[in-house]
C-alpha cells in the first residue's frame, strides 16, 4: 500500500471522527431545543390543571404500585409507609419480597399487622414460585398493601409476579427505596387519560437524586445538594439527560427507555408482550423496546410519554466502585437490548423506532464510548509518533470543553426556570463549578465503566446485578 492511499485512508478516518463529533454535537443541540419547547408546553398545559378532581372521582382508574424488594430490611417499613401515603384514591401497593435473605418480611408483618391469606394468582407470566405466600393487613388503614414473598428470581421476575397479582388497569413499577411524592400517581396517570388519538402505553418520570436531602417519615423535607463530587456530578448528568434529552424524545415519540426506578404502564399491554425479560440486566429498556415493537407490528397508533415533574427521588451511588458497577450494568443492558432487537434497525416497517431511535441509540449511545476509546488510543499513537498538530488539538479541545459546559448550564437553566428544586444559597455556584469539573470527575469513570461493560458483555457472561449496599435514604439530623 503506497503512502498516498495510506494518507487517503487516514484522512477518511479523520473526517469520520470529525463527522461523528459534529453529528453528536448537533444532535445534542437539536434535542435540547426540542426539550425546551416540550417542557415549556407541558408547563403551560399543566399549570392550571386541577389534580385534586381525580382524587375524589369514582371514575379514577385503578393503579397498582409494584415494588420489588431484595434485602431491603433497613428501610423497608419506612419506604412502604411512604408508598401508602400517596394521595391517589384508587390504588394499591404490591411489595414483592424477592427471596430476601434478611428479615424484611418479618419487619413488614409486624409493622403492618399482616396475615397470610389464600390468594389465587393468575399466572399470566411465568415466574419463580411463592415462598411464604401472600400477605394482607388486618388493619383497615393499611388495606391498600399486599406483600408477596417469593423465591428469588431477580427484579424482572419480581415485577412479573406483581403484574400477575395486580387487578388494576395501570401499574407503576418502582424501586422500593424510591420516594414517591404524594401527587406522583395522578400526574403520571394523566397522559394515559388525556390521550385521544394516540394510545399512551407507558409514561416515564424524572428521577431526582436524593443524596443528602432530608427525608423524614417518607416525606421529602429539604432538598440539599450533596457534598461529594461524584454525587453532584450525577445530579448534573441526570438533569441533562432528563430535561434536555428525554423530553425531546418524548416529543418525537422516540423514547426507548423509561427508568426502572419509576415508570407507569398499561397493564394489559405489559402482560400481552409477556412482561419483563428475566434474562437481561437492562429490563427497563428492554420492555419498552419490546412494547413499541409489538405495537408497531400491530400498526397501533401509540405513544410513550414523559413527565418532567420531579416525582421520584432515589439514592445514587456515592462512591466510584458502586458507580462503575452501575454504569457497567447499564452498558451491558444497552448492548443486550440492542442486540436482541436488531431486527428493527433501519427497518422502515418500524417507522421512528427503527429509523430514528434505534440508530441513534446504537450510534451515539452504545458506540460512543467505543469510538471515544479508539479516539484516545489513536491520539496516544499520534503523540508517540510526534504527529500531533497541537494548534488544532488545543483549539478543538477548548471548543469541546466549552460546549460541554454550555450544555450543562443549559440543563441547570432549564431546572431553574421550571422546578427550581435547589433553593439554597450558593447552590447555583456549586452547580456551575461542577459543570466545569464534571468532564474530569465523572466522565472518565463513565467511560471506563462502559469499556468494562463491553468487555464483560463479550467475555464474562457470569456478571449480573451486583450489590448496591443500602445506606439508608436520607439521614435525618435529629
Amino acid at each position, binding site marked *: 500500500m503506497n503512502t498516498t492511499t495510506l494518507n487517503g485512508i487516514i484522512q477518511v478516518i479523520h473526517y469520520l471522527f470529525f463527522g461523528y463529533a459534529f453529528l453528536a454535537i448537533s444532535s445534542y443541540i437539536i434535542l435540547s431545543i426540542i426539550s425546551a419547547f416540550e417542557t415549556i408546553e407541558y408547563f403551560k398545559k399543566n399549570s392550571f390543571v386541577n389534580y385534586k378532581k381525580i382524587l375524589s372521582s369514582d371514575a379514577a382508574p385503578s393503579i397498582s404500585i409494584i415494588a420489588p424488594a431484595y434485602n431491603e430490611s433497613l428501610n423497608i417499613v419506612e419506604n412502604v409507609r411512604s408508598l401508602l401515603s400517596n394521595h391517589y384514591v384508587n390504588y394499591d401497593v404490591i411489595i414483592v419480597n424477592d427471596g430476601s435473605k434478611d428479615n424484611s418480611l418479618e419487619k413488614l408483618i409486624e409493622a403492618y399487622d399482616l396475615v397470610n391469606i389464600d390468594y*389465587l394468582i393468575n399466572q399470566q407470566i411465568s415466574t419463580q414460585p411463592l415462598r411464604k405466600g401472600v400477605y394482607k393487613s388486618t388493619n383497615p388503614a393499611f388495606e391498600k398493601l399486599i406483600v408477596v414473598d417469593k423465591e428469588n428470581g431477580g427484579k424482572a421476575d419480581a415485577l412479573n409476579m406483581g403484574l400477575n397479582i395486580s387487578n388494576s388497569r395501570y401499574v407503576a413499577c418502582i424501586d422500593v427505596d424510591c420516594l414517591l411524592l404524594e401527587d406522583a400517581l395522578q400526574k403520571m396517570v394523566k397522559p394515559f*387519560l388525556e390521550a385521544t388519538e394516540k394510545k399512551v402505553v407507558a409514561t416515564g418520570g424524572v428521577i431526582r437524586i436524593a443524596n443528602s436531602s432530608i427525608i423524614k417519615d417518607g416525606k421529602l423535607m429539604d432538598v440539599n445538594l450533596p457534598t461529594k463530587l461524584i454525587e453532584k456530578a450525577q445530579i448534573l448528568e441526570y438533569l441533562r439527560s432528563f430535561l434536555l434529552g428525554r423530553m425531546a424524545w418524548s416529543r418525537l415519540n422516540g423514547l426507548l427507555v423509561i427508568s426502572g426506578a419509576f415508570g407507569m404502564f398499561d397493564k394489559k399491554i405489559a402482560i400481552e408482550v409477556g412482561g419483563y425479560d428475566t434474562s437481561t440486566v437492562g429490563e427497563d429498556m428492554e420492555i419498552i423496546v419490546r412494547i413499541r415493537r409489538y405495537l408497531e407490528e400491530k400498526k397501533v397508533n401509540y405513544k410513550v410519554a414523559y413527565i418532567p415533574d420531579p416525582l421520584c427521588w432515589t439514592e445514587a451511588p456515592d462512591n466510584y466502585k458502586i458507580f462503575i458497577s452501575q454504569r457497567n450494568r447499564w452498558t451491558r443492558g444497552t448492548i443486550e437490548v440492542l442486540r436482541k432487537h436488531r431486527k428493527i434497525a433501519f427497518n422502515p416497517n418500524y417507522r421512528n423506532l427503527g429509523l430514528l431511535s434505534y440508530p441513534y441509540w446504537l450510534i451515539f449511545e452504545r458506540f460512543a464510548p467505543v469510538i471515544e476509546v479508539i479516539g484516545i488510543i489513536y491520539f496516544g499513537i499520534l503523540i508517540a509518533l510526534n504527529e500531533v498538530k497541537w494548534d488544532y488539538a488545543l483549539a478543538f479541545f477548548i471548543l469541546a470543553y466549552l460546549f460541554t459546559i454550555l450544555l450543562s*448550564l443549559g440543563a441547570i437553566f432549564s431546572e431553574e426556570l421550571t422546578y427550581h428544586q435547589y433553593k439554597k444559597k450558593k447552590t447555583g455556584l456549586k452547580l456551575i463549578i461542577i459543570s466545569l469539573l464534571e468532564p474530569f470527575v465523572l466522565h472518565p469513570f463513565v467511560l471506563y465503566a462502559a469499556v468494562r461493560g463491553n468487555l464483560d458483555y463479550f467475555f464474562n457472561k457470569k456478571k449480573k446485578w451486583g450489590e448496591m449496599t443500602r445506606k439508608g435514604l436520607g439521614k435525618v439530623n435529629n
Partner: protein
Amino acid sequence: MEIHKIIQNYFQQLPFELQLVWILSVFLSLIVVIFVVYLKILRSSLRKEEVLQEESKKRYETLLLSFLFNESEGDNASNQEIEFINIINIEINDNFNRKIIIETLLKLKNEISGEIEKNIQHIYLQSNLKSFAYQQLESENWYEIAKGIKELTQFKVEEAYSQIKILINYPKKEVQKEVQLYLVSLFHFEGLKFLSSLESDLSEWDQIELLEELKHLENQEIPEITDWLISKNDSVVMFALKLAKMYNKYENVDTLIQLMNHENQKIRLQVILVLTHLQVLDAKGVLINNFKSYSEEEQVAIFKLLENIFEPSDETFITEHIHSNNFEIQLSALKMLKSINNNTFSQLLTNKKAFENSRVLNFVQNN
C-alpha cells in the same frame, strides 16, 4: 501589552478554520459568562420572590380573616366590606399580588360553604378582580384565555356566560375544555348541552373532571341522556354511559342493550360495566345468546356481570365454561357453580385430574 501581542500574532498565523474555531470558542465563552451571571440573578430573584410570596400570603390571609370576623353588626358590615374591597382594588393592579389574593380567596372558598363562602363570592364580584379575568378572555394567547375562564369558573361568575360561550369552538383544546367546565360548573346538566353538537373527542381526563363537577350538586335533576347514547361521537357515548352509571338510568336499559351492537369494543365494554352496576336481569339473555361473538375481554366482563345476577337457570351456560382457557372466566364459572349446585361442584372435586388447573378448583373450594 506583551501578552496581547503574543496572542494576536499567534492568532494571525493560524489557518482559517482554526481562527473560526477560536472565534466560536470566544463566542461560547461569552455565552457561558452571560449564563453564569444571569443564573445568579435568576436564583436570587427567585429566592426573594418566594420570601415575598410567603409574606404576602400571610398578610392577605390575616386581612381577609379579620374582615370576615369583624363583620357582625348590620351597617358596619357593608362598610367593612367596602373598605376591604377598596384595599384590594389597589393592590391587585400588581400581578403578583393579584395572584396571591385570588389564591387566598380560593383556598377558603373551596373548603367552606355557607355565609362565608357567599361573602367571598361577593367580594370577588364587587371588586375589580373580575375585570382582569374578562381582559384575559380577550387575549391573543390561548394560555391567558384558559386561565381567565378558569378563574371565572372558580368564582362562579354567571354574567360571563355570553362571553365564554362563544369560545366553545376555540381552536385550542385547552380552551375548549375550560369552556366546558365553566358551563357544567355553573349550569350543571343544562351546561352539558354542548355534548349534542360536540365534534372533537372528550378525553377520559376531561370526562372525569366534568363528572366531578356534576357530583357537587344541590339540585339533583337527572339528565336526559338518550340522545347522547346514540351520538356519532364515540367519546360522547362513553361519557353518557358514565352518566348512566352515575345516575342509575334504568330507563335507558333498552338503549344500553342495543349498544352491545356498537362497533367500538371500548363502548361495548363500558356498556357491560354499566349493566353490571345496574344489575339488569334483562340483559342476561342477549349477552348469553351472543356470547361467542364477543371478544375475550368482553366475555370476562360478562361473567363479572353474571356473578351479580345469576340464577339457577343459568347453570347449563355456566357449566360450559368451567374448563375455560381464560383464567378469570374459569374462576367465575366455578364460583357460581358452587353457589348454584354444590353437588355438581363437589363431584368435580372427586375428579380433579380432569382439571388442568386444579389450583382454581382448590381455591374456590376453600373460599
